């Protein structure tokens, strides 16, 4: 039926490039450079992966940087964002400050980070934190905390107050209620927030390339540099691309439920 055909076409267009990427990463370069190369490579070589991971490739170091930055960002964003969302949901502030603060978190999403990239760079320079994991982590956390706050806020507002009331009557303070009652109930939302944060941080390019000038570089910064080089071969670029793309794709498939929840929360409400 035509529906199936269209969906199959969409799948081919969406996934085709990934297949091509992986195929080209094991195809010898001369085969790629000579026009007329077929789709199935006649020879397979792992030279490109060796080159990318080898001594001069430094890819493992950048992979490690990405892992460190993403893990730290996710943890910190949740640590800062979830309590903040709880506060915004439960705190009564004068002068409609709750709305002001909520908006403050909101607007971070809507301006181009290039505006703050250079001043942020100068601040990190003055602090002596250039080219450190910390500089990248702080930038990433500041970008993702708004997501976390938003997600959790939407979830918390739906949470019936009665649940906390019984804890309150037991003499539980706000923090206790948050940790023992609210957090366990928010596990799905937290999961969504964590996954969304992880993806954002893993894929982020601008801030990472601005403040991580050498040893703290992450994978996206690394792959962006292949293009302007005078001699890098397509095969290596494909191998590098596969290193970035395949793990992320697998992780996405595994966590897609949380990802979807994270993206749709707030959008589908009123």
């Amino acid at each position, binding site marked *: 039926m035509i529906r199936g055909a269209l969906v199959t076409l969409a799948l081919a267009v969406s996934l085709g490039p990934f297949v091509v990427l992986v195929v080209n990463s094991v195809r010898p*370069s*001369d085969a790629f*450079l*000579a026009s007329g190369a077929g789709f199935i490579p006649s020879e397979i070589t792992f030279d490109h992966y060796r080159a990318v991971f080898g*001594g*001069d490739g430094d890819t493992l170091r950048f992979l490690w940087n990405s892992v460190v930055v993403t893990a730290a960002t996710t943890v910190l964003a949740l640590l800062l964002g979830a309590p903040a969302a709880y506060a915004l949901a439960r705190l009564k502030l004068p002068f409609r400050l709750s709305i002001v603060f909520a908006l403050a978190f909101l607007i971070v999403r809507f301006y181009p980070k290039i505006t703050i990239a250079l001043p942020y*760079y*100068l601040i990190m*320079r003055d602090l002596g934190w*250039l*080219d450190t994991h910390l500089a990248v982590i702080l930038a990433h956390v500041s970008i993702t905390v708004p997501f976390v706050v938003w997600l959790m806020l939407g979830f918390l507002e739906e949470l019936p107050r009665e649940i906390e009331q019984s804890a309150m009557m037991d003499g539980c303070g706000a923090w206790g209620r948050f940790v023992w009652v609210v957090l366990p109930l928010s596990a799905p939302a937290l999961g969504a927030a964590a996954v969304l944060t992880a993806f954002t941080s893993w894929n982020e390019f601008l801030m990472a390339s601005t403040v991580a*000038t*050498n040893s703290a570089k992450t994978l996206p910064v690394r792959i962006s*540099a*292949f*293009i*302007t*080089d*005078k*001699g*890098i*071969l*397509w095969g290596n670029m494909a191998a590098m691309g596969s290193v970035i793309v395949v793990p992320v794709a697998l992780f996405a498939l595994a966590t897609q439920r949380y990802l979807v929840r994270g993206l749709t929360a707030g959008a589908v409400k009123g």
Partner: protein
Amino acid sequence: MTRTTIMTAGAIASLALGSAALAQTVEFSVMESGTNDVAARQIADELAVAGGPRVNISAFPWAVLRQNNTTDLISGTNQYDVMSGGYYLADVYAYFQPLDDLIDRDGFAEGMIDNLMEPGRSEWADGRQIGIPYGIDAYGLLINTAMLEAAGVEPSFTDWDAVIAACPVIEAATGEACLSHPTGSPEQIGAFFFSGYAGTFIDGDGGYALDSVAATAAAEDIVTLWSFLPENGTAMSFDEAHAAFANGQAAILVTWPSFVTGVLDAEGSAIAGGWQQIDFPGTGFPWLSLWQLFVPAATEDREAAWAWIKAFAGPENATNNLVAHSMNSVWAATYEDETLMAARAHYWPATTVGFARAKNPPLTGEAQDFLTNTLQEIANGRTPPADGIASINSTWAGLPVPPPLLEAAQGSGLAAE
């Protein structure tokens, strides 16, 4: 046996003791091209084994290297002790320390190709030398011998008009494209302009300006030349362009010879023995690429940095750098070597002529980028040549000329009186 062992141990010990002061780390930034960086790592290993300073290599693609070096100096991070770069770092010359005293003390300049240590070739600031050359290349024109013969075209072009006249003949005779060039790397188009434009880059008032008439003519030539590229060839990477030439799909290749000579002569290459480099056409100059080593003023251990410079750029490793890594030597002796010359007779003569004629354009990064991007717009037909040149002049009027580049331009005849 025992005596030798003791003597060797003693030698190593004294070397180690003597180099205790030298057991420093030198941070080095270099281009990641598969040539300079690979050579650097090899020499760094050898230096460490010989008891010299430990050298940490950080390699980046060209544009990233330029950006990282500049950022490192301007931000005061000062991560690198020795930097690899060229004339396009003019904006940050103030951050480098002069090396004249070390050059004179160790007689480093002796035996180098004539004039390479002069201003306009090597980098000088405030009358003192800051850049030590280690790799030289001049934009080259390579031809497929058989294809030109088939078309009855003489392998000799004085200017681009001659090439333009020959190309239709070549294309008709061979059925292939006439010209291949790494069009996908936007800055490369400069090569055609610098050689086709015989005017000045800096006017009498010390500001950037092109002579409109000459510049427009050169730009028009580029438009015509672009029509001789292979089909869909306006965004070819270096690899693609070189492969097109090697596979006989283009008769003429205009590129940095050092990137391609090794590949063309490699075993299994379709074109081995069937190509040669000829003199670069044009009344302007072939684009010079003189890779140099700079030492930031903030570098504390001068001697360690200098030890690395001598190892990497010195005459001892020049031949190996050439043979193993395709880095053209800056030392005259290399080119007098009979064995090397025998294997390279099809390009060294043109190469060395090119070195003598080649110059650096006295342009900052921003000025050069605007020039080459606009030339691309002209070549693509998005902007008429005259308008494009006019917009270059108008934008250039707002860009200051760093004094070192002005000096260099005056020295090499690229600035008006």
